[in-house]
């Protein structure tokens, strides 16, 4: 296993950081997903640890709570034998005296090989990468991006659907505030998939029309029209605070317009029995996704979580392992 991995320097993702899904071209995405598949095999063994990152230190610096993503990175680092430390960054408000730069430099000064950053502010990982020598992995920055989520989504879909080239993926929900959609758009397009974004106009990001025209994806306000044409539908969580923000009148109306209801599950299955359902979690059952859909045979929700560890192992490997070999 380790021998196989160390024999891949030519395809190893060579960038210093993973800040945006746009950092990766198709070859690099494929290399990461291929390595993830190998890592996924390791997960099925009794002894899951690989020695690959022994002696390396990975810090999960999370300024925003996310048990799911943090645990996934933590397990990924540990199964690669890295020393993994979790640090909860304090609030990023300017009133607290210490700047983000101060906080990050303090952590980096401890001798860190990789910083996995989660922050409620868009661009935070990008800024951090300019201040430190360590490799920076963006584990979600505000409403901007979440590249490892997009990789694990692609990995999961690909395992069910095969090559995503030419496949049609609809992403439905609160697009404005979603970092998942921005990364998925990029990675899915990189892999040649056709993407349609579905949401009420109030939950579409500003300037989305020009963006769609420039990057080649589709937009729709009509979920029912899009549904029969898809190979995968990705439902996004609708944050509770959006419900009081005037983005749509009531949860009930949202579900009728944009929820993956029982009726839409049937329509999807009728049109394409092989179509799959994704949700990055956590789900609002009954709001954006009916329980029947979440638990359906086509649902990949738990596969996504499982893939998360393998994909993050692969990302850490591609960023760090080359250096370890050279050292």
């Amino acid at each position, binding site marked *: 296993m380790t021998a196989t991995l160390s024999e891949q320097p030519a395809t190893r993702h060579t960038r210093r950081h993973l800040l945006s899904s746009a950092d990766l071209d198709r070859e690099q995405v494929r290399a990461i997903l291929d390595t993830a598949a190998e890592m996924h095999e390791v997960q099925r063994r009794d002894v899951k640890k690989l020695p690959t990152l022994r002696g390396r230190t990975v810090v999960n610096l999370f300024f925003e709570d996310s048990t799911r993503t943090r645990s996934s990175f933590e397990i990924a680092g540990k199964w690669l034998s890295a020393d993994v430390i979790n640090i909860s960054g304090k609030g990023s408000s300017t009133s607290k005296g210490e700047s983000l730069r101060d906080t990050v430099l303090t952590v980096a000064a401890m001798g860190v090989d990789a910083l996995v950053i989660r922050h409620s502010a868009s661009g935070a990982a990008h800024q951090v990468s300019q201040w430190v020598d360590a490799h920076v992995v963006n584990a979600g920055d*505000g409403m901007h991006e979440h590249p490892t989520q997009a990789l694990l989504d692609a990995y999961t879909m690909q395992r069910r659907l095969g090559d995503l080239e030419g496949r049609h993926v609809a992403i439905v929900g609160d697009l404005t505030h979603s970092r998942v959609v921005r990364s998925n758009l990029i990675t899915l397009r990189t892999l040649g998939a056709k993407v349609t974004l579905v949401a009420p106009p109030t939950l579409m990001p500003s300037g989305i029309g020009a963006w769609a025209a420039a990057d080649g994806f589709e937009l729709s306000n009509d979920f029912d029209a899009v549904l029969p044409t898809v190979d995968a539908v990705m439902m996004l969580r609708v944050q509770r605070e959006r419900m009081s923000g005037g983005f749509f009148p009531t949860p009930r109306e949202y579900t009728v317009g944009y929820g993956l209801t029982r009726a839409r599950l049937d329509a999807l299955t009728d049109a394409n029995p092989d179509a799959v359902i994704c949700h990055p979690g956590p789900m609002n059952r009954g709001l954006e996704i009916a329980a029947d859909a979440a638990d359906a045979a086509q649902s990949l929700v738990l596969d996504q979580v499982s893939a998360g560890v393998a994909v993050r192992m692969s990302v850490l490997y591609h960023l760090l392992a080359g250096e370890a070999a050279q050292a």
Partner: protein
Amino acid sequence: MSSLLVTGADLAGTGARDLLVEDGVITEVGTIRGSRSVDVLDADGLVALPGLVDLHTHLREPGREDAETIESGSAAAAVGGYTAVLAMANTTPVTDTAEAAERILDLGRAAGLVDVVPVGAVTKGLAGEELAELGLMYRSRARVSVFSDDGRCVHDARVMRRALEYVRAFGGVVSQHAQDPHLAGPQACAHEGELSGRLGLPGWPGVAEESVVARDVMLARHTGSRVHVAHVSTAATVEVIRWAKAQGIAVTAEVTPHHLALTTDLLAGYDPVYKVNPPLRPQEDVDALRAALADGTIDAVATDHAPHARHDKEHAFVDAAFGMLGLETAFSVVSDVMVASGRLDWAGVARVMSVNPARIAGLAGHGHDLVVGAPANLTLVDPSATVTVDRGASLSLSRNNPWHGHTLRGAVHATLLRGRVTARKGAVA
């Protein structure tokens, strides 16, 4: 009697003349033989402008003396060619009383490099609810006649109406920071458009400015009062102002150097040095602002000089402080963007950087043509010089300088405040 002979300066594009300055006043203009024993300032090849006046400066004192003081800000103003600056009211405490205004006036006089004119808050504590003591600030030694809650919008229409009506009694003006807080809330930090959508930055749509300006010009018409629009940033705001002026409504407007030159594309790297309020806009807006400044729809250039301590900028973009430095670079930016490109001549620069702002602010001692009897407030600029901006060389205490590394055509050579040289070639004199 102190006297100074300025020789060979082109007077705002009207031709080279000599100027004799005695006791702070221009006493002779023409070809002056050096028969008298006076100090001579050789201004051959330079253009003389009436001393620049900035309608919109944040000097941070009192409250944030780590970012700027009235003294350091005055030095930055002097080397930038300014002889008068209006100091915005959003200090700590807020300039919302006569005593606070007089304190700023006195600190400015103590620094002695530029006339520091306090702007009074429109509402107590900038809270947007109750009128500050506008009349008492006017009656104070500071003679405050420009009022602004800048940093915040006077968004309550009733409060804005009352303020406009009230200051009419003494010829005051309200300078409005136009930003509907419901359309552009406190998190809004990037021009709302395709780029903000891609970057996931909370959008600050142009309509949040335009709708307030539209309302305010109607309030100015209704009340017969004067309103001034601070830092115009969009093409549609220009259209509203153009329409209002055509109706005879008493509206004036300013634009910042950065909105004349920098675009929202700079936000792509999330560098908070480019975070400013209102935000940098797309090129179409920049083009409209340049045209509006050239055709007189926009009356003045104002810096919105906004120094910030380094640690207030080194946050995530959304959390970092708004604002950028401007006093030292404003002339060079205007020279580069407006004059070198042929959009404005030197008389035009005198108009938008001195005459109009002095008139809007009611500053009797500033903004005069360079004629016999005028106060000797003048700025000598070198149109053929280029400057490459080095943020480290700034006299401001702060370094949030978006022009760092830019090479600009046109440089301030010297500044005279009532006949005294206050700055020369980037250093205070």
